[in-house]
Structure formats: C-alpha cells, structure tokens
C-alpha cells in the first residue's frame, strides 16, 4: 500500500536510492541500450548513460545534498557534464528542472514528485523541441508524467502511483517501435528508423522503473 500521496515522506535518501537503483539498472542494461542505439544511432547510449549515472552516484556520495531538490539538481548537472551525447543535456535538464520544482523542502510528497516529473518533462520538450510521436525519450517520459499526475489526483498510494508511471513509460517506449524518428540522430535515417525501439525512450522507462522499485521498498 505504501505512503499516502500527500505525505511528505520522500527524503533526500529516497532520491539518492533512486539514482543508485537507476545507475544499477542502466549498468545492467547498458549493452542492450547500446544495441538499440547501434540500430538507429551511434551505438553509445548505454555507455553514455552508464558513465553519467556512475558519476551522478559518485557526486551524491561526495556532496550529500540536504534536500530532494538539491539531489536532483546535482544529478542533472552531473549528467549534463558527463554523458557526452544528446541524452546528457536532455536528462540533465529533466533532473535539474525537476529538482528546481521541488524547491528547498527537506522532504516531499508523491504529489510534489508528480509536479517535479511534469516540470522535468517540460524542460526536455523545451530543450529538444520533440513532441510525442517523434520517437524520443519524450514518448516514455510524457505518459509517465501523465500517469503519475493522474494517480496522485486519484489519491492512490505512492507504490501504486509509481507503478502506473513505470508501466506508462514502458508502454510509451514500446510504442516508439513503429515510429519514424523526427528528432535526434535517428531522424537522419528517416524511414530506416522504423521497426526499432528508441534507445532514449528505453532508458527513460528504465529510470522510471527504478523509481518504482525504490518506492516499493520505501
């Protein structure tokens, strides 16, 4: 059942645990992400994100930010500097905007998290000018943010709400398979990008799944 969506139970440690879990799952799926990127990109998405999340975990360990917002801003800044590919500025912006949306609170609620995820997705859209259907990470992030916001509105528990968000992200990632890419490197390939799942949408689903995994044991 987990915590109520209004309760401010999400501490910096929760967000730190999320990033650690995301790093673990990116590491585990690194070769698969790179394989997807080999099909319609330059075969570096797995290595890019593995490097970025490893550095993010290290940075959190060194600096131990005192608020959830500061955790996410530090993660975002680290991803921007370390990823090296298009996904660096994009995920970096997502985490930074989400962190800024959380403000200075020492702990936040699921509702705050929903608002932060929405802000993060808005940042990605603004930076990359991708819309849903363009075969990018937005196709996983936007439905996840929508599902989380809806679950929170319905007053569902944290575990349940993040389960819905994770499921929406996974479905969104799968839905990129038949799309022709309209943004990023894959867009140069035009119709040849059809039939492959977008690497960024796939990693976005992983990161949302990590959030749910951590919430389920919180």
């Amino acid at each position: 059942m987990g915590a109520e969506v209004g309760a401010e139970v999400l501490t910096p440690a929760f967000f730190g645990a999320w990033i650690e879990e995301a790093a673990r799952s990116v590491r585990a799926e690194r070769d698969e992400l790179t394989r997807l990127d080999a099909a319609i990109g330059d075969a570096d998405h797995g290595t890019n994100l593995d490097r970025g999340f490893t550095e993010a975990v290290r940075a959190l360990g060194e600096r131990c930010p005192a608020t959830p917002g500061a955790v996410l801003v530090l993660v975002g800044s680290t991803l921007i500097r370390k990823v090296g590919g298009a996904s660096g500025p994009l995920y970096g912006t997502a985490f930074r905007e989400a962190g800024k949306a959380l403000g200075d609170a020492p702990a936040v609620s699921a509702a705050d998290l929903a608002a932060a995820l929405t802000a993060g997705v808005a940042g990605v859209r603004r930076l990359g000018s991708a819309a849903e259907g363009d075969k990018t990470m937005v196709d996983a992030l936007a439905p996840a943010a929508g599902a989380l916001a809806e679950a929170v509105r319905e007053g569902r528990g944290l575990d349940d709400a993040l389960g819905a968000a994770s499921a929406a992200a996974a479905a969104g990632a799968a839905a990129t398979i038949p799309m022709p890419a309209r943004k990023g490197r894959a867009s140069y390939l035009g119709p040849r990008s059809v039939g492959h799942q977008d690497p960024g949408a796939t990693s976005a689903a992983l990161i949302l799944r990590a959030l749910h995994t951590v919430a389920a044991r919180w």
Partner: protein
Amino acid sequence: MVGIVLISHSGPLAAETAALAAGVCGVEVVLEAAGGTEDGGLGTSPDLVAAAVERADRGDGVLLIPDLGGAALTARLFEGPGVVVADVPFVEGAISAAVTASAGGSLEAVLAAAEEARHFRKL
C-alpha cells in the same frame, strides 16, 4: 568583436573548420573550437564548450554553431543574453559568420550572415 564557437562531435572537425573559416576571413577573428569529449572521444562536452565560450566572449556576444542535433542541445544550454545558437550549415555558416564578425558586425548581423550561408552557392 563577436566571438564564434564551433561545437562538433569531433575535435579535429571543429578545429579544422575554425582554421578554414579563419583562412577565408584573412583578418583577425575570434573563432574557438569545442569538439569531442574531454577525453578526446566523439561527443560533446559542456565543460569544453563553457571554456570556449569564455575564451570567445570579448563583450560583444558569442555565436554558437553546432554540427549535429546533439551538439545543438549542448549549445542551447549556454543560450542567454549575448549567447545565441545558430541552426546553420556547420562549415558554410562558420565561414559566413566569421567574415561578418571580423568586419565588426553585431551579434544579430553575424547570426543573419550564418543563416544566409544556407543559400550560398559554391558553383
């Protein structure tokens, strides 16, 4: 003088394009290359871009020219007052921007020149 920063996935591509544009210009121009990752791999490094923007900033604005979409995203992180990203052909935009910058053009003029490079004919 307006500064120009060339942001490429490849270190040598940024550096050679800067040299070519400087050569066409002839006179002095502020052209900085930010190519590749910090360890010399393919990709873009915001830290290298930040350093190049700092070197290129002489107080009259800086134009960032990226090669691919990924470099354009990195470039956009630096957008702000006096720092503008040009969505233009990499080599041709760099030449055109450099000529206008070296002639003392404003940031708007340098951006416009870079945009015009889209329609420049070589033949």
